[in-house]
């Protein structure tokens, strides 16, 4: 099938050995994700404690590193409650709907592989392959598709609980997620424009050791992507979904035991996946200098991990330091700032490419672009302000 034809592993005949390699990769990716979630939760608690002058978990294992495992075990053995009012089938379906997309998305991330001269091909048990589970030609679209499927889990969880706080929480979450998906999609489109492909592998190999998409796309898409991703993940400062003071616990208020654990797992898995995607599309993925040839295979993985950890630390940092947004501010930011800027930037990048193609004067192009931005930005601002004035006027009149 042509779905996997890009990977040299599957280009030839698919025998038993190849199948074993694929299964091995599946296992590695799965275990990796679970373990990193465990560590991520622990790290988050530790780092936040540190920033808030507390100690954090200490009991389970050295530095409390096994705390997550202990929590998980505890949750598994707790009673599985389903509220009377709940819609039972959907109630049970919802956690799975959040979890499965979280796993699937991670499968398109290139975790390693030497991209400097071997185009990311590594040798695994004598078979040439990429160090990523799947490289479908639609690549990042899979990520977008999965993030839209994940919305269902949250929406249905809130609805099926048959209780009003979860419903409110899930409605908030869903509107937030679909609003920010617009900005998210537009920034990803900027990357597509730069790399000319949807495939994550191609996107990584189009970048090189230090030449990352972050520079080529002019940093703005990455900033927008990070903000939108935070909102998409419902992490602070955009965690209105589970604003405790208002909503008790948000969409998963009624969930307990293992089902709750699944939501929790999915949330952190998504955080890791999105960070990994930022690394892939903006930060060059596993690209990096290779120093010692004997362990050449290790360096890309190391670079990937370092970049990933830096991003995860940023997410934790934001959580520890930023206060929560108000709901109207959140929507304003999404629709009136991020989406227009992302769209404008995409147009600018398009204009740049066309100018390169036709050999136009770059200074002129930039000048025209800046002027156009200024004019339309001013018009937009004026429209927003006028709308506000009219609203206030009407409210005054009663």
């Amino acid at each position, binding site marked *: 099938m*042509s*779905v996997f034809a890009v990977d040299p592993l599957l280009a030839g005949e698919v025998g038993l050995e190849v199948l074993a390699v694929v299964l091995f990769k599946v296992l590695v990716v799965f275990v990796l994700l679970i373990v990193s979630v465990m560590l991520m939760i622990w790290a988050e608690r530790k780092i936040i404690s540190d920033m808030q002058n507390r100690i954090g978990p200490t009991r389970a294992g050295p530095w409390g590193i096994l705390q997550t495992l202990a929590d998980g075990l505890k949750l598994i053995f707790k009673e599985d409650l389903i509220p009377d009012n709940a*819609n039972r089938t*959907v109630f049970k379906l919802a956690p799975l709907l959040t979890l499965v997309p979280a796993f699937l998305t991670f499968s398109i991330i290139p975790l390693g592989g030497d991209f400097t001269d071997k185009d990311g091909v590594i040798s695994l048990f004598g078979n040439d392959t990429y160090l990523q589970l799947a490289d*479908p*030609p*639609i690549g990042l*679209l*899979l990520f*977008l*598709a999965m*993030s*839209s*499927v994940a*919305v*269902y889990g949250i*929406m*249905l969880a809130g*609805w099926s609980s048959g209780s009003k706080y979860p*419903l409110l929480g899930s*409605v908030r979450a*869903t*509107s937030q997620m*679909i609003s920010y*998906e617009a900005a998210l999609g537009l920034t990803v489109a900027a990357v597509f424009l730069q790399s000319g492909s*949807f495939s994550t592998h191609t996107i990584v190999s189009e970048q090189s050791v230090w030449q990352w998409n972050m520079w080529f796309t002019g940093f703005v898409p990455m900033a927008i992507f990070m903000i939108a991703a935070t909102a998409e993940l419902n992490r602070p400062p955009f965690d209105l979904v589970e604003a405790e003071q208002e909503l008790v616990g948000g969409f998963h208020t009624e969930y307990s035991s293992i089902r709750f654990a699944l939501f929790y797992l999915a949330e952190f898995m998504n955080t890791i996946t999105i960070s990994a995607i930022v690394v892939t599309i903006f930060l060059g993925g596993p690209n990096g200098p290779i120093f010692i040839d004997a362990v050449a295979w290790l360096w890309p993985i190391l670079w990937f991990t370092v970049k990933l950890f830096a991003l995860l630390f940023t997410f934790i940092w934001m959580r520890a330091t930023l206060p929560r947004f108000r709901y109207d501010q959140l929507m304003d930011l999404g629709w009136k700032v991020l989406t227009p800027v992302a769209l404008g930037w995409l147009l600018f990048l398009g204009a740049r490419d066309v100018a390169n193609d036709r050999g136009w004067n770059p200074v002129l192009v930039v000048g025209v672009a800046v002027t156009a931005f200024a004019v339309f930005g001013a018009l937009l601002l004026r429209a927003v302000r006028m709308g506000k004035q009219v*609203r206030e006027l*009407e*409210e005054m*009149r*009663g």
Partner: protein
Amino acid sequence: MFIAAALIILSGAMGVIVARNPVHSALFLVQTLFGVAALFVLQEAHFLAAVQVIVYAGAIVILFLFVIMLLGVDKVEDLNVEPIAGQRPLAVVIGAAGIGLMLTVLVIATDVISGAHSSTGPLGESDIDEIAKSIFGDYVFAFQLTGVLLTIAVVGAVVLARRAATDPEPIPESAYDELVAAQIAARESTLTAEGGDGTAQDGEETTDDGEDSADDGEAET
């Protein structure tokens, strides 16, 4: 593969109709849409499949669910009330006739439906390129005007939905009841006066909508 996808689609479509709960119907619709996405993958149209999931499952059905939840119509419908007498038997007859017609066509048709690729020839490098070439090539004008269409639809919808503070009270719900009552009266008078010829059909149509909205009104209060 094709049969599996077809089964997913058909069972989903049946579920949409059979499910009593609107939310369940919407979920079955998602199932159907995923089945269609699977069919696209079988035809090696990966891009279409992804877009199918992103747009239909990710945006459209979510909006359906939003409306269902916010309007509070996510209750099981009461099937004992029949708004228009004789409507359901008629619907059964017409539906059966429609299905019969379609099945006859399928049986007579010389081409048996299979999962085989369409005969228009292989796609080029990838379906993404082909779609891009069509949209920005032969269909560029229609594509641009679709943009106009979407913009204008948004503008119109906002204008219609917007309620300025200076607006008088919104139409009270009782107005619906009055309208229904008036229409029923009008219909009855026509029926009694002229013995129910052509005009009655028209009256019936009107009553249909009116009563539906009245039902909604009661459900909310």
